[in-house]
């Protein structure tokens, strides 16, 4: 499933420079170094962390997208950096667990 295919299923696009990127698996976490060490390439990464370092971690760990759960806000700085570094960021108003369950149902 492509990142852009999540739109309209409870996920909104906050930064979508590479919507055609394929999602392969999901990782959930907020400790950046932990995520860096454990997330797999092409994972969708669900987090509530919204500082600008999230973009660097997503870019370097090569995740397919970041999903900000729990309605966490996209800051201007985060949006700017994400677009500059070609990092997809989606938003979900639901809590992390519900977000993950919905995502699991979509990617199968």
């Amino acid at each position, binding site marked *: 499933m492509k990142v852009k295919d999540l739109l309209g299923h409870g996920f909104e696009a906050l930064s979508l420079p590479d919507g055609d990127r394929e999602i392969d698996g999901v990782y959930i976490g*907020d*400790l*950046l*170094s*932990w995520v*860096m*060490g454990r997330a797999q*390439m092409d994972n969708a990464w669900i987090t509530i*962390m919204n*500082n*600008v*370092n*999230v973009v*660097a*971690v997503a*870019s*370097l*760990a*090569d995740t397919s997208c970041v999903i900000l759960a729990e309605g966490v806000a996209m800051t201007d*700085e985060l949006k700017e950096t994400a677009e500059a*570094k070609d990092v997809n960021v989606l938003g979900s108003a639901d809590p992390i667990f519900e977000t993950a369950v919905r995502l699991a149902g979509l990617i199968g």
Partner: protein
Amino acid sequence: MSDSLVFHFDVDGENFTSAGQASTQVKKNLRQLGLSPAIIRRVSIAMYEGEINMVIHADGGTADVIVTEEYIEIVLADQGPGIKNVEQAMQEGFSTATDSIRSLGFGAGMGLPNMKRYTDSMQIDTVVGQGTTITMRVDL
């Protein structure tokens, strides 16, 4: 190694929000060289962790990335406080980062373990009060 490439970066110790710039640039450079995404990912992660460590603990430093036909070497050098107990620092979960660093999502005690995990070899040369040099290699 007359055909090796060297990329040099100064890592700014003051600017936490721009940390990762050197790693991001290396990722771009390696991509242009046509290296595989898996190799690029390993180098990028190892270097980013080192870069973050230099910002958190050592007020910055330098990063050199040497690309040869056989391996990629990353040399991170700082003049920070040094590592008092390397064995302890290598344990997952051990961290001396402050609460403000932790609030940004760092300080999980995964930096050095991640660097080791994603490289084929890692050497730490550290002198308390003088600084630390970490040399990592990813074989091609």
